[in-house]
C-alpha cells in the first residue's frame, strides 16, 4: 500500500522543493498533506501555490502566521478555502496520521 507523506513548511525559500517532492510522491501513489506556518505562509503568494493545492491531497496554512507576516486573513490565497486557514493542530495531524514526515 502506498504510504502517506506530511510536509511542514516553515521556510519561504523552499517552494521548488515542496513542489518537487509533492509531485514525485503523488506519482508514486502517496497521499500528501502540506501545512505552511510562519514565514512559510509567504509561499501562498507564489505562482505555484494554486497548482500545489490541486496536486496535494490536503493543503492548509496557519492563519495566525499569515496575519503575523502581514497578510489580510480575509484575503484567502487562491487554492484554499476558509476551512484551510487553520491552526498548528494541522502540524499535529501530520505527525499523528501520516507515515512519513518532512520539514521544508
Amino acid at each position, binding site marked *: 500500500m502506498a504510504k502517506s507523506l506530511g510536509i511542514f513548511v*516553515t*521556510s519561504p525559500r523552499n517552494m521548488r522543493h515542496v513542489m518537487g517532492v509533492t509531485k514525485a510522491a503523488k506519482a508514486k501513489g502517496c497521499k500528501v498533506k502540506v501545512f505552511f*506556518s*510562519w*514565514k512559510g505562509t509567504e509561499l501562498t503568494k507564489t505562482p505555484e501555490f494554486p497548482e500545489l493545492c490541486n496536486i496535494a491531497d490536503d493543503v492548509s496554512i496557519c492563519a*495566525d502566521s499569515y496575519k*503575523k507576516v502581514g497578510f489580510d486573513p480575509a484575503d484567502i490565497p487562491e487554492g484554499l478555502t476558509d476551512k484551510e486557514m487553520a491552526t*498548528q*493542530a494541522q502540524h499535529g495531524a501530520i*505527525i499523528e496520521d501520516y507515515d512519513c514526515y518532512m520539514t521544508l
Partner: protein
Amino acid sequence: MSNKVCFMLVHPDYTLDGFRSCLGLAVENMYSYAVALNNELPALDDYNKENIDWIRDMEGEVYSNVPANCEKEGFEPLTIEELGQKLRDMDVIVPYGMMPE
C-alpha cells in the same frame, strides 16, 4: 504513546514563532521541546513568556546553548553534544525555519 518532538531554532526571526509552534504540539498531547541554538533572544514580552510557561506546564521544556538565554529566561542549558543525545530519543525532529545568513 505520545510522540516526542524537538524544535531546533537557529534564526532570530524564527525562534519566537518556533516556541508558539512547539506549544501547538504540546496542546495536541505530544511531548514537545524547543531548543534556541546560537541565537540570543531579545527581552521576552508577556505573550512569549506565557508560551514558554505553557510548554513547561505541558511537560515539555525549552533549552538553549546560549548562556544569556539561560540566565535571563531560565532556559535549561544544553550543549550541542547533549542536544545530539536528546535527539536520538525523539520521534520527530524539526529544524525550524532557515539558517541565518
